[in-house]
């Protein structure tokens, strides 16, 4: 189905199932521990061998020699694969560094070997017996130092709109500040894990991957085998956040180890290896300049961002939102990319905007203060309903101001004291902060197959994944709505490359695109059902388990007696995303307390108001937003991969030292979704929501800490060592 004109009225608009708060259909499996994850496929492999990875002990250089003899002789060892016996290993289309290193080493903990043994304990012990002699090369690990050598990355040309320099020089109120964000890790709870089974020259990988078709292609490319010979199965994924968008080392090692040992092999990365072996969100340095009139109209915006990556890698893209979020006639945007020999930088939840808004939304707070304006008001008067650099191109929908106003009213923003450091609650300095949220709505083609069986049940198959986002449930809701079936009459099968290719899970495009693909397949199935029932497909109505035209009503059960009726299609998006700017918007409000004596910061309240099109399932959509707010709170307060700038690795590479938010850090959270259905995004009229919540929230926390303490910290995370000596005297 082509989608190249805005949606009109369609069966989804009935909203009898779609849009209703619906507990997850996979919930009973997840809560009982019966949902099978990649390392747990005893059902298909009763007796797998165990793999264990050895990671490189240097950040850059070469392996001079590698001695596996002692490890090979260790008890239970079945095979050891290194670059010497792996055969050719190519770099995947979506990878920057090789997933099995050697002799060249590109980053610390790059895989250099897999040991396969009868038990996990044997494989782990034997991996310690591999002797590697490295020749270390000098590398560049310090973004601040490498900044001067950074260049304009391909595909990120500088943007000059109007005349920034002149407008900035003429502006009566200006800001020129530099902000930094650190390297961050996805730290999803399920380690990267795969079980590999070879059947002749065909490989089945039970894995944990967000993008099945990309992964299938990259496994094939990396191993040099045809894509048709690879099957990926990934029905449950223990979190991804971008870290499982791409094939990672363990999948390739499992395949190699299994081929060498001639047995199914399963392997999970050990937690301390994940932070340096896999990808991370790269650190940024961001300089922001804003010029405005005295009444707060922005006239000039400049956003320059520096990040680093391995050769061939991409920049973080922290300037992305600054092209679109606020009005202003004159604009200058520049991305700069330095070569760093740290592990591969790549997408983490809201790549670009998450880091970019950490800086921009502090800058907006600072600007509001310079102007003597309320930060809500300052944002509201700089709203734009069109692409600021292409005024003929409107936003498909934009209710940002409504987010701001609704949030301010609900949160009690009017009670905020604009003078920082002025409000006390016992020994706590308290403060309120807010920030805007912005994240684009991406559309990607997505396919599905829907079958009606003789019992009248619908079975949906698509290679779409559920990484905690709630895909199972919204896909079931979509099919139920389209076919007039109760939710429990729909089965959903996901994450298998044997199913039609979907958009996959990433960039908050999964929910809207994958359900639109199911919508398209259901349209086909509705035609097949109506034809089978001898009814006019154009006039057929589907409700209560029946298809009907006028008084003629035929139950779906029994229609497929002679074999399943099948509808299969792909939603193919036209140029509506070119003609319109499709984005999602939000406003975050936060209250913090900062201990006046110890500097300890605690979040007391959090509210997000979101404008993200039609909300398909308010239960899981809300969870996506509060989860993203939680991750953003971590970005504000604790999360930082600490770079060892001499040896070139992230020093705090485990969950004890890379501090993510825990229960004690997070209060009750509130989310408000504005009513809305965006007919320009898809037949579902939905938009992404999974990343919107992390956009801006860290700055809202930062602004609240400033409001509480009067100390402006521009380097994340905002740990107390950065402000303790400047707290107001009690």
């Amino acid at each position: 189905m082509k989608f190249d004109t805005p949606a009109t009225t369609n069966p989804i608009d009935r909203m009898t199932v779609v849009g209703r708060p619906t507990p997850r259909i996979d919930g009973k499996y997840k809560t009982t521990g019966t949902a099978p994850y990649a390392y747990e496929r005893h059902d298909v492999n009763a007796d797998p061998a165990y793999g264990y990875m050895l990671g490189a002990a240097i950040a850059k250089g070469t392996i001079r020699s590698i001695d596996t003899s002692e490890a090979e002789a260790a008890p239970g060892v079945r095979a050891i694969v290194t670059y010497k016996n792996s055969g050719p290993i190519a770099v995947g289309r979506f990878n920057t560094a090789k997933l099995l290193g050697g002799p060249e080493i590109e980053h610390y903990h790059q895989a250099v070997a897999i040991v396969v043994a009868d038990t996990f304990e044997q494989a782990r012990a034997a991996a310690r017996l591999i002797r590697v002699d490295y020749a270390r090369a000098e590398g560049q690990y310090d973004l601040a130092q490498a900044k001067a050598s950074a260049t304009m990355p391909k595909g990120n040309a500088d943007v000059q709109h109007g005349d920034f320099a002149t407008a900035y020089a003429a502006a009566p109120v200006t800001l020129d500040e530099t902000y930094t964000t650190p390297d961050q890790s996805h730290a999803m709870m399920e380690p990267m894990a795969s079980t590999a089974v070879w059947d002749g020259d065909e490989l089945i990988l039970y894995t944990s991957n967000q993008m099945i078709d990309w992964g299938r292609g990259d496994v094939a490319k990396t191993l040099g085998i045809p894509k048709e010979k690879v099957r990926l199965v990934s029905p449950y994924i223990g979190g991804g956040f971008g870290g499982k968008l791409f094939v990672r080392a363990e999948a390739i090692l499992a395949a190699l180890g299994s081929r060498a040992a001639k047995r199914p092999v399963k392997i999970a990365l050990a937690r301390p290896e994940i932070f340096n072996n896999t990808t991370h969100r790269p650190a940024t340095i961001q300089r922001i300049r804003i010029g405005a009139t005295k009444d707060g109209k922005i006239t000039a915006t400049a956003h320059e961002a520096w990040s680093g990556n391995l050769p061939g890698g991409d920049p973080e893209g922290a300037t992305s939102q600054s092209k679109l979020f606020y009005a202003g006639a004159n604009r200058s945007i520049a991305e700069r990319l330095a070569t760093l020999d740290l592990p591969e930088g790549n997408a983490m939840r809201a790549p670009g905007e998450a880091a970019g808004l950490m800086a921009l939304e502090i800058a907006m707070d600072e600007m509001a203060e310079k102007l003597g304006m309320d930060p809500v008001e300052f944002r509201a008067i700089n709203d734009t309903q069109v692409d600021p650099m292409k005024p003929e191109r409107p936003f498909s929908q934009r209710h940002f101001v409504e987010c701001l106003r609704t949030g301010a009213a609900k949160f009690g923003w009017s009670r905020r004291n604009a003078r920082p450091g002025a409000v006390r609650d016992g020994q706590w300095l308290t403060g309120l902060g807010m920030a805007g949220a912005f994240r684009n709505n991406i559309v990607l083609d997505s396919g599905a197959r829907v079958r009606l069986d003789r019992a009248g049940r619908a079975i949906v198959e698509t290679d779409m994944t559920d990484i905690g986002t709630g895909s199972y449930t919204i896909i079931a809701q979509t099919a139920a709505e389209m076919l007039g079936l109760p939710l429990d009459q729909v089965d959903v099968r996901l994450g298998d490359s044997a199913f039609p290719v979907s958009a996959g899970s990433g960039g908050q495009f999964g929910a809207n695109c994958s359900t639109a693909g199911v919508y398209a397949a259901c349209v086909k199935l509705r035609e097949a059902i109506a034809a089978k029932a001898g009814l006019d497909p154009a006039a057929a109505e589907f409700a209560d388990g029946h298809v009907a035209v006028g008084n003629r009503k035929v139950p779906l059960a029994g229609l497929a007696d002679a074999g399943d009726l099948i509808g299969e299609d792909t939603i193919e998006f036209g140029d509506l995303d070119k003609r319109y700017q499709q984005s999602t918007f939000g406003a975050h409000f936060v209250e913090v307390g900062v201990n006046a004596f110890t500097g300890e910061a605690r979040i007391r309240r959090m509210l997000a108001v979101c404008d993200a099109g039609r909300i398909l399932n308010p239960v899981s959509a809300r969870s996506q937003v509060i989860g993203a707010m939680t991750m953003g709170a971590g970005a504000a307060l604790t999360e930082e991969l600490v770079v060892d700038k001499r040896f070139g690795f992230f020093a705090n590479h485990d969950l004890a030292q890379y501090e993510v938010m825990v229960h004690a850090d997070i209060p009750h959270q509130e989310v408000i979704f504005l009513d809305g259905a965006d007919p320009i995004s898809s037949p579902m009229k939905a938009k992404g929501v999974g990343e919107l919540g992390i956009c801006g929230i860290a700055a809202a926390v930062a602004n609240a800490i400033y409001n509480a303490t009067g100390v402006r910290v521009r380097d994340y995370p905002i740990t107390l060592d950065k402000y303790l000596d400047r707290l107001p005297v009690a």
Partner: protein
Amino acid sequence: MERSGIFDMSRRGVLAGSAATAAVTTMPRAAQAAPAPAEPATGHVSLTVNGERHDLTLDTRTTLLDALREHLQLTGTKKGCDHGQCGACTVIVDGRRINSCLSLAVMHDGDEVTTIEGLGTPDKLHPMQAAFVKHDGYQCGYCTPGQICSAVATLGEIADDVPSHVTQDLTAKARLTNDELRERMSGNICRCGAYSNIVEAITEVAGEKA
């Protein structure tokens, strides 16, 4: 204390130099004095898991977590970090919650272990499991069994008057407050960030009990 080579190197800030590099990662061959590889030591252990007795002969290095997951194929208990940092492996042993990754299986001879599979099944959910579904107290589901085991044990600890870090009055009866729940549950990380919903689920179950 004698410092190893890597500390000497980092102290001097030496980055390059292949001789030093080799010393970091390659032990002199003679120093290894590799003995002939020995077969792993094994031990016998009897565990009662979810009411069912299992007699196992295990590599003594096998954790309780891996005994459950790999030997008994009870994969509801999750391995998130294997270092006691995330809580995904939480099970209840003789009434107390523990990180099963931090405990060797052979240390549990005669112990009674309750895992997520012992609390309820998809067709017959434990009240805590049902509350997690109702309140969407999870997303990806990987920390969920640990959260639920931890939550069930937490309510038991409060009922037993076991104090926590945030208990203000150690002599008073332990109370079930939001702060107490958040403190006691902080060993169970949920990277999807379902904390707000998890606490609501636990609070509801606690309310029904009270």
